[in-house]
């Protein structure tokens, strides 16, 4: 190709390029706004799903203060219909955090809610198809929203994520906080006052008991009990000890002894006893164990049974903790009179199971021996760690700390 051909070719190409550029420039006036509208529609599709009558949205996350970490983004509906919040939540069963989008009307009620991403191994939607819809029309109090039986962690995480979204709106005065009933305030105190009652599920109530919950790990029962116009929270642990609290969280057990008696009667009729199991384990660990006597505990943790006994002339205390890791854990501790762990054992060491694909095996004897001699002062949690088994490790930590707490309560601590 000579230089003339080259120049001709370039000129012809330039001419065609100009013609097409001009055509596309003109066409862009027609298609540009439509494409922009389409893109906006795709971006806002999850938002429109929960607030279908919205005109447009404006993201306001960066303008808000005190937004909880789990809140991904907050959008304001530009015509004043309300807000849409995108939040996330994780449980120990999550491969990835679940993502939730919900719309809140200007008067603070949920107008639409959907689960955008969900990877938990247990799907609470299959256990309760109406659970998500039960949030509709609720305000930030989320009254009567409980958890899903069999998927407690996932549904609790879902509820917490929604509460976090509401909190972002309320703390920035975008909506008015919903008013909680006394029963709701009391029920929300259960995880704080009785942290060992795991996977609580509602059970049948009777008499003055308005609502009753049983712990999935059999660590006790919680009740909202009516006395005149006032409501109280009564907690009964697995050893039959009861405490009563008012809506301010004050311990009013002595003043409300009738409530305590009613709660204890209900719990006694429904509580599964683990004393026999603990006795058997103690005699297995200490063949010469004698004077085995059950002990009532003032703690409300995962310890479901406690006994004192003697072995070789020395005094020991046995504790049965039921924490929850990947599965239910049944862990036994024997603590000597000085507060040091003499033995640790478990009904089934969960880490022997096949589900730990990456688990390379461990020496159970060494693992158990690692607990011996530890006291609540020297306990750091390291002894409970099992590589690649985070959930079991955490459950072991909780059980150990709960056993120490139960021992300290016997020895005149709290």
């Amino acid at each position, binding site marked *: 190709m000579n230089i003339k*051909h080259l120049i001709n*070719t370039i000129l012809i190409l330039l001419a*065609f390029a100009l013609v*097409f550029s001009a055509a*596309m420039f003109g066409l862009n006036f027609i*298609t540009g706004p*439509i*494409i922009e509208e389409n893109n906006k529609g795709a971006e806002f599709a999850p938002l429109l799903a929960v607030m279908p009558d919205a005109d447009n949205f404006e993201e306001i996350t960066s303008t808000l203060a005190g937004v909880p970490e789990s809140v991904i983004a907050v959008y304001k509906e530009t015509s004043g219909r309300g807000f849409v919040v995108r939040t996330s939540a994780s449980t120990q069963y999550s491969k990835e955090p679940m993502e939730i989008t919900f719309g809140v009307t200007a008067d603070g009620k949920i107008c639409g809610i959907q689960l955008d991403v969900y990877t938990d191994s247990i799907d609470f939607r299959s256990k309760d198809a109406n659970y998500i819809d039960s949030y509709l029309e609720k305000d930030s109090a989320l009254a009567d929203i409980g958890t899903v039986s069999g998927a407690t962690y996932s549904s609790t995480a879902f509820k917490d994520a929604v509460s976090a979204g509401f909190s972002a709106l309320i703390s920035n005065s975008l909506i008015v906080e919903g008013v909680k009933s006394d029963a709701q305030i009391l029920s929300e105190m259960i995880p704080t006052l009785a942290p060992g009652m795991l996977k609580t599920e509602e059970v049948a109530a009777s008499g003055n008991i308005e609502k009753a919950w049983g712990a999935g790990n059999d660590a006790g029962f919680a009740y909202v009990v009516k006395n005149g116009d006032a409501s109280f929270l009564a907690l009964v642990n697995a050893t039959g000890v009861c405490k009563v609290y008012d809506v301010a969280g004050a311990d009013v057990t002595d003043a409300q002894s009738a409530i305590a008696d009613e709660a204890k009667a209900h719990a006694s009729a429904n509580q599964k006893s683990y004393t026999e199991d603990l006795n058997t384990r103690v005699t297995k660990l200490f063949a010469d164990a004698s004077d085995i006597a059950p002990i009532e505990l003032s703690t409300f943790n995962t310890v479901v049974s406690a006994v004192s006994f003697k072995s070789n002339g020395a005094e020991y205390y046995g504790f049965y903790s039921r924490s929850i890791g990947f599965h239910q854990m049944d862990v036994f501790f024997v603590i000597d009179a000085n507060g040091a762990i003499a033995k640790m054992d478990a009904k089934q060491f969960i880490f022997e199971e096949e589900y730990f694909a990456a688990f390379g095996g461990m020496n159970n004897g060494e693992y158990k021996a690692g607990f011996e001699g530890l006291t609540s002062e020297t306990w750091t949690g390291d002894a409970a760690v099992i590589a690649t088994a985070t959930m079991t490790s955490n459950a072991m930590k909780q059980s150990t700390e709960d056993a120490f707490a139960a021992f300290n309560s016997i020895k005149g601590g709290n």
Partner: protein
Amino acid sequence: MKNFFKSCLLRGTPSMVLALGSGFVMASSADIRAALGMGAAVLISMILTSIVVSAIHKLIPAYAKLPVYLIIITGFVSIIQMLWQAFFPIVVDMLGAHLAALAVSAVIYRDAEEVADHNGEWTSIKTALTTGIFLTVIMVICALIRETLGNASIWGVEIPFLANYKVSALAGAFGAYVVLACVLAAIKKLTGAEEHLEGEEHE
């Protein structure tokens, strides 16, 4: 006329005989909407390219034809892509880069270079129209098989009674090869492709 259509189907529809454009036929045949969207894009770009090329081919020096024809095809494909983004965004989402890649497709260039460059507008339009329609029909047939049996859906709407019997492999690249091969074989058998092509060669 019958011979013309047969030529268009067998010789003029590239993916049938030369396996040109098989890539976008397979990429577009997982869903009927995608197949129709791609078919329409090919058809329109071929017609417009044929009109322009047949009108100007005498003015373009031989040494500049390749780049000029390519820029014409690219220009029309870009315009079609803008229109599709505006009016059929779901099709653009499904086709992805394959729609833009049409700009360098041998299918359209071959039509421009072999037909439009040597004939008048009417013949060029008629060939482009017929070839484009055949190509679209083939893509739709493939899509009908793949979407129905591979995804248990049609036009994106789930077919509940097929949900438990779907063959997911058909919706993927392997399924695309298998279905295209079957459709191609069926058309060749039904139309007597080999005899037709041999006949053309002897002429």
